[in-house]
């Protein structure tokens, strides 16, 4: 346990020393907050009765979660494989699951800090609404973060190089970002796009946070989808991490 903690602390230091990661995880969502909160008219009818800046709060959080899970983790892990760092760990005393487990801890810490930075920025810029059900918001956020972190680890364990991870990560990130809640609200989308948006995993993260926050309905269905994603992605990365090279 002490060894795992030491591994997590070292990995956290390495993440913090990586400027590209910090830009994408901290600066990009903050810019999104500032832009999205201000582009819509306050009495735009597409926001289920909420203020646009209130409606987008959950989406900001979703952007952080998606940036960490789809870009930061896969690129980082795939570069470890590409450069032989994983091999170095394979001959160390750390069991195979130790590195992914440390990444879950590290990514959770980064997620929480990045979300805090975001909410402060959002509050200063537009003012944040009082959450209707704080516990629901926290559960939705943590479960959503865990789902995307697990997906990110599975992608990072499966992809051969940091470039392929960057390519696939971006390819997933932008549609998820636009359709998952940070783009136009579902009511403003045409039917086909709105149906696609419903199967994008990020949509479930954003709805799991948004519904308890703004009292827009029960998020149980979305929570169930997230729990299933955590399970599937965990099975995937555990399977990938214990295999021995051919």
């Amino acid at each position, binding site marked *: 346990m*002490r*060894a795992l903690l*030491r*591994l997590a602390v*070292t990995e956290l*230091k*390495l993440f913090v*020393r*990586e400027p590209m990661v910090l830009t994408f995880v901290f600066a990009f969502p903050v810019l999104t907050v500032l832009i999205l909160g201000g582009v819509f008219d306050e009495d735009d009818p597409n926001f289920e009765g909420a203020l646009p800046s209130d409606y987008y709060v959950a989406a900001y959080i979703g952007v952080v979660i998606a940036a960490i899970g789809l870009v930061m983790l896969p690129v980082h892990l795939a570069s*470890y494989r590409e*450069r*032989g*760092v994983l*091999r*170095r760990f*394979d*001959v*160390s*005393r750390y*069991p195979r699951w130790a590195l992914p487990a440390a990444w879950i801890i590290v990514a959770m810490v980064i997620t929480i800090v990045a979300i805090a930075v975001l909410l402060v920025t959002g509050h200063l810029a537009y003012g944040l609404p009082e959450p209707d059900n704080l516990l629901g918001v926290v559960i939705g956020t943590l479960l959503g973060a865990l789902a995307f972190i697990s997906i990110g680890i599975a992608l990072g364990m499966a992809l051969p190089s940091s470039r392929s991870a960057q390519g696939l990560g971006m390819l997933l990130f932008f549609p998820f970002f636009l359709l998952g809640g940070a783009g136009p609200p579902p009511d403003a989308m045409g039917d086909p796009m709105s149906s696609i948006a419903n199967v994008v995993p990020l949509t479930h993260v954003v709805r799991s946070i948004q519904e308890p926050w703004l009292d827009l309905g029960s998020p149980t269905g979305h929570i169930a989808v997230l729990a299933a994603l955590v399970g599937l992605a965990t099975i995937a990365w555990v399977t990938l991490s214990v295999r*021995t*090279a*051919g």
Partner: protein
Amino acid sequence: MSMVIEVEGLTKRYGTHLAVDDVGFMVSEGEIFGILGVNGAGKTTTVECLQGLRRPDGGRMRVLGVDPRSAGSQLRALVGSQLQASALPDRLRVDEAVLLFGDGDRNSADRLLQTWRLAGLRRSSFASLSGGQRQRLFIALALLNGPRVVFFDELTQGLDPLARVEVWDAIREVRERGTTVVLVTHFMDEAEALCDRVAVMRAGRVVDAGTPAELIARHARATTVTFTPPVSFDPGALAALPGVDRVERHGELIRVIGTNQLIAPVCAAVLGDDQSGPPDLKVHHPDLEDALIALVSDPTDRRSDAAAGRTLEGVA
């Protein structure tokens, strides 16, 4: 003497390519054992199987009495490894690396950094280290936690001559502490300088094994003396000297080839009246490199295929 590593009939296939073909050898406690061969001979695959990094298709392996296939995690505490093509994260610092892979005890980490002359580089990131410094760090990491066996794979690849000699000294120190060393290399001078015993691999097979002296005696008998003779010299008389097999002429240069018995008589014969010999007189004793070249290019073996021929340049 007890056996630290036993390998028998080890086989590993990549698709249709037989990378390791019925390999067997033993490594006894406290020795430096070399696995030699040109590039692509199957050396790295063999040690990767022993380290539990690859799953062989057949054969029997024991490292410290256990099978690396089933007891991988148990072995990792007893075996140290420096891998070919492995790295640390660029921004990881030297002291962080030692703490991360060690038992986390600062005092023992400090001692290790002192021993490997890394103490001054404590705060340097991995990316900023030179090739020799990185290899010293890898050796230090391989020796963390007091392993009983260490694997070094192409440890001096890409190092300058000074750094290589440094690393050689380091490996001798490791052995002096009683640790068994398995050294994979395609540098024959390195193997000759360090190894107690070696196995030579070619195209996935062990073609011969023994001490460097035994291999040299078996496969590289020829001693040569070369020089540019004075104008009046008659090279024909050399052929009758003891130990001489033949005398070749390459332009101005005379090359006398035979056993090491020929050295003294030939040198005496070329001594001029003023007791000075030819200034370019050169004596070449057979060495492990000659033995390896003879072994991997032996035309009587049906396996002397393109692989062996192609990689000869790697030896030179």
